């Protein structure tokens, strides 16, 4: 048996670790070219453009909740505050995400109705 220390994640009882966010750039280890392209593109997406950086940060915060990404919620809660957004705006953004998710479920109810109409008398 090896006497070396196991990697820090070995034996971990959970999938998510807050410290992993800081290791995002390690993804380049397997393919640096793809990582470079991703991070360049990511940086360009969030640059000031037709939308301000603050607006993009709020969109990112909402999407983070829609895709339920803990890393992203961590990063964009902080980023939104740093960009000058406040709790009222951030809460409304999260409600937008929640409304779309809720609406997405509910609007499928029309499909259910179609089936009911087709199956029923």
């Amino acid at each position, binding site marked *: 048996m090896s006497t070396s220390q196991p990697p820090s994640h070995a034996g971990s009882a959970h999938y998510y670790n807050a410290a992993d966010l800081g290791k995002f750039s390690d993804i380049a280890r397997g393919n640096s070219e793809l990582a470079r392209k991703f991070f360049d593109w990511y940086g360009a997406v969030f640059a*000031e453009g037709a939308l*301000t*950086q*603050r607006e993009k940060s709020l969109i990112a915060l909402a999407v983070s909740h829609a895709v339920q990404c803990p890393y992203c919620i961590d990063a964009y809660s*902080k980023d939104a*505050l*740093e*960009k*000058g957004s*406040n*709790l*009222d705006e951030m809460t409304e953004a999260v409600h937008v995400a929640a409304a779309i998710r809720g609406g997405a479920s509910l609007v499928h109810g029309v499909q259910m109705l179609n089936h009911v109409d087709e199956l029923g008398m």
Partner: protein
Amino acid sequence: MAYRCSITSTSWGCSRVSRILRTLQKRGSSLATGAGQRSRLAAIPTARSFERALGDAGLWPLRSLVLDILQINLGKRCNQTCKHCHVDAGPDRTEVMPREVVEAVLAFLERARIPTLDITGGAPELHPDFREIVVRAANAGAHVMHRCNLTAVLLPNYRDIPALLAAHRVEIVASLPYFQGRETDAQRGDGVFDESIESLRWLNSLGYGRGTGLALNLVTNPVGTYLPGNQAALEVRWKGEMRRRYGIEFDRLYTITNMPISRFLEFLDDREQTEEYLTRLVNAFNPAAAAGVMCRGTLSVGYDGTLYDCDFNQMLDLPVDGRGPRTIFDADVALLEGREILVGPHCFGCTAGAGSSCGGAVA
């Protein structure tokens, strides 16, 4: 937070907490002394020391340049107890600059022809000689800056001060962490925001912030453990929001990073976020910001006349390099310019991102 919320099976709600807190000194905290704070900071592991970061940027030892700003701290007395205050100021503090120090400051300002006198505290207005200092410094030809909490001038015996400041063309640098009450009051105390708006409207009515040469600059610092955003972008938004919501005009918005000392250090410790915050500052070290730190052109005078490289070193009891003059009584520009600046882990607060100074971002 300035709000405490509770949810039970029958009710829920949030109520505000008290405006005035007891200072670290009053509570006998270990962070009430410079030595206590330095000891706490030294115990926090960082990836590299500030000296090393400066060395890597080719800036060590950091030396002062031409002395442009004489910043005087009139004392620790204040009518507010902001949670992030690096001075640990408050109503229960009694330290104020004695008369002989005031005279020595004004004599040095005139003798050395320092272009700017930057007055801070505590709430400087509460010093009995504040008005005289403003008038004599302005008459001596100095550009006078007043660091204002916006609420002290609303106290009954201080309502003459805004007109005095306007008459002597004093630049006002006013603290306002956010353009809404919730955030501002969470940091500065219940009701501070509404009073700040009242003061700002008053200053506008005197011509401040209206392009008449009476400069009204606002200072925002994060209401929490995050770093300030882009100063220029925030200024654009703030100008729009302050005008739209309150009809208030101002000149510049300065972003300032919360310094991990004194009451903000206690706040970080209470939340067990001190190491995380310092790491954030260390990781955001910007050599361009380090080259432009304000201590290079500033001399800071404590209430007792001791000289410091900056107001933060003053609170950590780190006087200027002992190889030169160390009090206002023997201050000599020729001996102070080019001095080696004393640094420590707290200095990462001024070099993170776009940097931070009493005049906002530096890089």
